[in-house]
């Protein structure tokens, strides 16, 4: 019997590893969910002398998408953002994270611009307030300025259709 102990331990371990695989270790419960979105005032990307602050958006449900021209996964989610912006269901604002202004503008020109407007977070301070692990990340913010959802990593068709759009509908009604 004692010779069967190793296999029993191993089987237990495999069961847990199997469960572990079905979970995403990146799905951390964000401490910011259901908390007010951190306030900021940053300069706009298109007009670097004009400031923008999220308080201007009180009363609307909106998406804040962090991105950078050097980010590869941002290219991947870009067509989805363009489609989402075209549908007009929810306005998309961009936080251009640790990027060069000319690179960012060039990127928007060649890839298409889904954003109502972009702000520049050149040193990443605002990103830090929002707990950005890495770009892209997307936040859904409600009419009272509270974060309702956070997507770490690129948006997917599934996350938009199954999570974001129903939430937007809910929050708007």
């Amino acid at each position, binding site marked *: 019997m004692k010779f069967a102990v190793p*296999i029993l331990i191993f089987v237990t371990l495999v069961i847990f590893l199997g469960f*572990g695989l079905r979970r995403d270790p990146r799905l951390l419960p964000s401490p910011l969910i259901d908390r007010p979105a951190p306030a900021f005032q940053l300069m706009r990307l298109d007009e670097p002398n004009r400031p923008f602050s999220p308080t201007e958006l009180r009363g609307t449900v909106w998406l804040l998408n962090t991105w950078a021209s050097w980010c590869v996964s941002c290219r991947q989610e870009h067509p989805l953002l363009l489609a989402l912006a075209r549908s007009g269901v929810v306005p998309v604002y961009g936080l251009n994270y640790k990027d060069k202004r000319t690179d960012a503008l060039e990127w928007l020109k060649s890839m298409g611009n889904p954003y109502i407007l972009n702000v520049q977070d050149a040193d990443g301070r605002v990103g830090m307030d929002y707990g950005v692990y890495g770009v892209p990340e997307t936040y859904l913010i409600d009419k009272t300025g509270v974060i309702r959802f956070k997507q770490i990593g690129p948006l997917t068709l599934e996350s938009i259709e199954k999570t974001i759009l129903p939430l937007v509908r809910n929050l708007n009604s």
Partner: protein
Amino acid sequence: MPDVATIGNFSLITALIVAILQAALPLMGASQGKSTWMSAAVRLARCQFILVVIAFLSLAYCFAANDFSVLNVAQNSNSELPLNYRLAATWGSHEGSILLWILMLAFWSAAVSIFTRHLAKEVVARVLGVMGIVSVGFLIFMLVTSNPFTRLIPAPADGNDLNALLQDPGMVVHPPMLYMGYVGFSVAFAFAVAALLGNRLDASWARWSRPWTLIAWTFLTCGIALGSYWSYYVQGWGGWWFWDPVENASFMPWLAGTALIHSLVVTEKRGAFKAWTVLLAIAAFSLSLLGTFLVRSGVLISVHAFATDPKRGIVILCFLTLIIGGSLVLYAWRARQIRSGASFDAISRESLLLSNNVLLTAAAGSVLLGTVYPLIIDALNLGKLSVGPPYFNSVFVAIMSPAMFLMGIGPIAKWRKAEIPELVIRLRWALAISILAGIFIPFAVKWKPLVTLGLTLSFWIVATICFDLVSKLKSAQTKGIVQRLRTLPRNYYGMQLAHFGVAISIVGITLVTGYESQKDLLMRVGESTGVGGYVFQFQDLSGVEGPNYDAVRAGVDVFQNGKQILRMQPEVRSYHASGNELKNAAIAGGIFRDLYVTLGEPLEEGTAWTFRIQHKPFVGWIWAGAVFMALGGALACSDRRYKPAASSAARKAA
């Protein structure tokens, strides 16, 4: 341009077919006594090796030639990347590292086919057959989920670039070393499974496995040390071990392998612990496989963030279950029939080695527990948590301290029966010296209990080595010191050298943990600060252009007792293609201390910069100790008794 990627892909598929044959024919031949089937094993293993080498060289060529129509090249290389890093990028990605894994396995199989000519045909056939099964699993995994030759059409104009952290000479050697060790345990595993299959678990099995295990262990020791050193100087934080899942993945097989080396000695010399030794051989390689799973499946988050894909995880998990589960079932079934050999007393070299084994296994088990604990808690829906260095450090010190103490006694105790009074008398001076040194030396700086513990153990190990060597030389029959030194076998020197290395590493770990100092501060040009008895003055700032990056370089002059002793130049590099930023720390290494300066972020419009300045006493000893351990392992392998001719002679004599 010839279509090299297709050649590579084709040779991988052919290698899979050869591996399937290598897994099936020899094992069936051995069970049915068909000689031709068994002897096919050798040729199939060599053929597989050649095919995998072709595949590996093809991938290397694609990287060297900037063939961005290969997805793996486009994602991990860039035309600006220097050639040496383009070649290292061959194993810098997930796909490439799996190919490296397979290459190492094929290499070890080919080596087994060459160096086991003196062994019985069934044994060689079974060993190569088992290695063939492992190879089949990995080749299927690669071809199904992670083919390095997948095309990207249309090909992009340029690639994404290699992760900036990996653009370093350490990266060129670290993974091959590590994998040589990791995968090398497959040989000991294959020998153990072959012995179980053939129902022939005897001392000769242990003698055949020992040199293979020692070589693999030596490579793994180098690989882990290089990895630790690499993270020390390239990550820019000054840490040398993080208990990160990826580090643990290589450390667990090392601990099990260390236990295995010791256990094999007892099985070979005394015929004892047979079942236990087989289990350790299975465990060492299983932990290598488990490590591969943990790293490659993405079930755990690590600082070595690799791409995650659930499909990969499922395939490796199934494969892992088959290989490890299969061998453990075989073990449960066959181990009952093993009759243990000679008996021994409660105090004897056997019992000391057994305690060492239990402690090393417990250490490996607690590292495993700490590594998978977050996963278990998450699977039970109890929340998300991470197990950090505090757990590992306290558990590890508690388990390893008694093991270090036994390390001093083990080599001196007699086989079968050792007398405690005799041991106490022989070791009384070593004990006195180490306790006194441990208590009083720390007063030179500041007394701390853990420093005393670490120093006592290090002195204990070194003192017992010296006493043992001297008494062995005194009792030698020949005259003259050189002749006497020659009477002792190389594996004795290998063992003592490796133990000495452990003592050196403990000194490093103890002193750097106890006495390191660091300062994070803001400095303007011309300002200075003092850390660890040195004065650091920020002199100037300049721009530097690298081959594929731009950097800002700070010049920091270091003064000791008012005299300038050196100039350090930390950099912040910004890579063109990826936009990644890398802090390239300046490190001034020395025998008794390292100085470590990292340049941080510019503040106040670039007139002031943040710096992290660290003084790390004896940190280099950690890796120097690992070098001694590896040298000891190599020296022990080179012992005459492991030469194929010698062991076949021994077999004839027996």
